[in-house]
């Protein structure tokens, strides 16, 4: 039986692999462009060495892409605990018409207003014709992959976004600040690091960026450490809200969906065993888990998980209510944080994270329907913004992107939504 099963597994995996025919000419073209960029970057970094000597204490970010010109901008020391030091943080209010919704793409930061109109606030695209999935930049001489995960239009009129390796803030004054970054991923080593932007919130009157930083040592088992950090944009000290480590073959719980903050509490979506169980932890400001708090507390035995998949959470501004996207995005729910009771539920089939809740009197909730992965959907676009109001019990859908794959602004990831202030 075992021999027969072995043969079956081998044969079926071989057949599965045969379904995949890599586009060799396209792949070769992409490799050539990556090689060319690598050499241009080497030259640029060498040329910048003397400038770095003069600009002691600052890092330099060069963005090359396929454009032979090199842009060099200064920002604060590139470490997780750094804050911008070289330029005054903008406190200008959002410009008139500042967009309420920000989405991130694999190519740049695109801001979308309430009518669906888009504008690119930072174009990370490179090249023409065939396209790379992601752009790259060099920070302090090291390559950073620009796979944007989230972007936020912030209260100060800027945009904050995260890549695999950096959390970047673009204030309204046009300057650029790397708030946190880690070494680029080295796929062949035993170590990988990443930073993930989780939220932009107001804590004690200060606009703060909440992100996670994860270090993983590979091997057959993943051993790692993760930190939840709240970093003030005004230059205050970072607050290491929570740190946890895991090792061996034990439960590999980790941050999974959104982290939301309000009224001194964080809500964190956790996953266990690669998402086989998800739940929502409620943390105090010092990172202490409040046992049993919230509608989906940590189960006693994650192996017998009592919950459907939890995709995203968002606390209302006063912390009294929690919006949850659950069941692979099928249901939008609204809970009381006081006693965890369900206030309302709306079947949406919207898709996945993110979700945002706004207590403007009507409790409006917005979710983004997932973007497709490099393939246009049936309407020729890629991704859809949908608004669901539990209070009104309605669901409004509108396409937000009709960009074609040959457009450098091609939307490959839509991850974040920020409601109008």
């Amino acid at each position, binding site marked *: 039986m075992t021999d027969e099963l072995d043969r079956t597994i081998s044969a079926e995996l071989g057949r599965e692999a045969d379904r995949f025919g890599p586009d060799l000419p396209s792949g070769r073209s992409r*490799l050539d462009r990556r090689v060319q960029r690598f050499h241009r970057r080497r030259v640029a970094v060498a040329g910048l060495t003397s400038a770095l000597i003069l600009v002691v204490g600052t890092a330099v970010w060069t963005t090359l892409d396929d454009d032979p010109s090199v842009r060099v901008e200064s920002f604060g020391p590139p470490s997780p605990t750094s804050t911008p030091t070289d330029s005054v943080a903008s406190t200008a209010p959002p410009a008139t018409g500042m967009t309420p919704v920000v989405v991130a793409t694999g190519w740049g930061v695109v801001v979308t207003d309430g009518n669906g109109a888009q504008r690119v606030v930072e174009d990370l695209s490179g090249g023409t014709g065939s396209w790379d999935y992601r752009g790259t930049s060099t920070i302090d001489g090291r390559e950073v992959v620009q796979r944007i*995960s989230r972007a936020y239009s912030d209260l100060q009129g800027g945009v904050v976004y995260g890549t695999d390796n950096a959390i970047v803030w673009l204030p309204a004054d046009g300057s650029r600040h790397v708030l946190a970054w880690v070494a680029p991923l080295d796929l*062949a080593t035993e170590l990988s690091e990443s930073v993930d932007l989780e939220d932009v919130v107001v804590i004690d009157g200060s606009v703060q960026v909440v992100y996670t930083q994860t270090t993983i040592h590979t091997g057959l088992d993943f051993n790692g450490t993760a930190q939840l950090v709240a970093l003030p944009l005004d230059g205050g000290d970072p607050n290491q809200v929570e740190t946890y480590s895991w090792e061996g073959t034990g439960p590999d719980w980790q941050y999974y969906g959104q982290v939301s903050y309000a009224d001194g509490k964080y809500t964190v979506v956790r996953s266990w065993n690669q998402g086989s169980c998800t739940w929502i932890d409620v943390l105090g400001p010092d990172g202490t888990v409040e046992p049993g708090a919230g509608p989906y507390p940590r189960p006693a035995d994650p192996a017998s998980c009592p919950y459907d998949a939890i995709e995203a959470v968002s606390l209302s501004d006063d912390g009294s209510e929690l919006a949850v996207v659950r069941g692979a995005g099928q249901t939008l729910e609204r809970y009381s944080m006081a006693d965890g009771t369900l206030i309302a539920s709306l079947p949406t089939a919207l898709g996945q994270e993110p979700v945002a809740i706004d207590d403007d009197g009507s409790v409006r909730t917005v979710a983004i329907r997932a973007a497709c992965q490099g393939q246009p959907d049936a309407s020729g676009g890629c991704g859809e913004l949908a608004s669901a109001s539990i209070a009104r019990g309605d669901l409004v859908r509108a396409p937000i992107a009709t960009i074609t794959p040959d457009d450098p602004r091609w939307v490959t990831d839509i991850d974040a939504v920020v409601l109008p202030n």
Partner: protein
Amino acid sequence: MSAESRRHRDDGIADLFSTAYEPMCRLAFVIVGDQQLAEEIVMDALMNVYRRWDRVERSPEYLRRSVVNGSRTALRSKGRARMKVRRWAARERVEDGVIDGPESSHVVDAVRRLPERQRTCVALYYFEDLAVADIAGLLGCSQGTVKSQLSKARESIRTALESHHDG
């Protein structure tokens, strides 16, 4: 880097691409189950080799290790979000009545549901046809650990297939 050195490196990476790109993409695809992601992982791995050419010149072992580590990392981090997108896309196709290719088999479905560690061992053992000792070397663990992961994986796949047949 001299012009001659760069030419040597460029020729070498072109050769490596022509011989290894497709099989490495298939290996990554078996592990992560996503074509675009698989190609990204292999592209990154090739650039790893290119950057370290003086040390790892044309090393298929280095490339494979890079691809496996990249696949596992993708499963653990960004891959989660991507797989959610795939789930959504699959639901859309079902709703639309659109089938865009042959379905994966029940065996493959069972493999895709395995924990990442078991899935990686299964891909290397059954698809790459590596010996247990080679897998242990690649993943930095003991042969006994690989054997136990493969044993658990077989049991899970067998149970899944029996459940399907009974259903």
